[in-house]
């Protein structure tokens, strides 16, 4: 079976995010008021082939932890959908 994986990688909550802070400071300057808590992360998508969803999840989670995200500084959320 094939599964579509979507991985959301975000800087960990307790770590300051200078990119998000800079974007947040820029928003009011161009007329957008009331926006706070901006944080910038990334989204990685890929396809996993495995016998079942559990196996696919194990592979994708392991790849996320080992390479796609760095758990020292990033949290990740994984979504899997059958293709």
């Amino acid at each position, binding site marked *: 079976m094939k599964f579509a994986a979507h991985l959301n990688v975000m800087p960990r909550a307790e770590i300051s995010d*200078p990119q998000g802070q800079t974007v947040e400071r820029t928003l009011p300057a161009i007329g957008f008021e009331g926006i706070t808590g901006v944080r910038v992360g990334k989204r990685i998508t890929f396809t996993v082939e495995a016998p079942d969803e559990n196996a696919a999840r194990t592979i994708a989670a392991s790849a996320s932890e080992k390479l796609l995200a760095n758990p020292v*500084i990033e949290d990740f959320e994984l979504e899997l959908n059958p293709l």
Partner: protein
Amino acid sequence: MRPTVGVVVFPGSNCDRDADYSFEYLGADTKFLWHLETDLDGIDVIVLPGGFAYGDYLRTGAMAAYSPVMDSVRRFAAAGKPVIGICNGFQVLCEAGLLPGALRRNSGLRFRCMPVRIRVETLESPFTSGGMWPGQVLTIPIAHFDGSYYAGDETLEELLAERRIAFRYCDAEGELTPESNPNGSRLHIAGILNPERNVLGMMPHPERAVDPAVGGTDGRLILNSLLYSLQPAET
């Protein structure tokens, strides 16, 4: 003994020539090691140079950490032989788990390229044992976008307790003023050691401060210390 320094070359390394030039300038033999190389026989020191290994795609050092050469570097380090990662090399060592923590985007979101001052925090390592005193202030250039050292509180306490911080950013008097921290590194960390003290990662470039023709010479202290440390004791 004339030591042989192995300079690893990843696709995208760009300080490999500088490292080669500087170690030769100081009297060592050097050898380039392509990232697919796994044979480190005859090598006395490994240098992971600066640059943008694998384009710094995904995260700095992320893909380079899994290069074929890195398995050999891991064994080399486990055998107690010295490894120095400079700038991108420091990022690779962190991603490879040979050093704790990670290097993040500079706090000011600016690429910083300038000489900085760093304070020698410990003499207990081959990189700092020869010809330096504790608290000595060195002037060494930096050139990086992702040099903000981050580690959790627990790791930082461990680094402090085990005296594994090798260098910290400081001002001319050796004070840790906020202005002297060029990238927002926690505890002003510019370089750290592994628990066995034979692996050093540092963001500043000692190899760019060896030949007086291109700047200062304080980098010699670090590289020379390392080369002296390899000499057999006189009896």
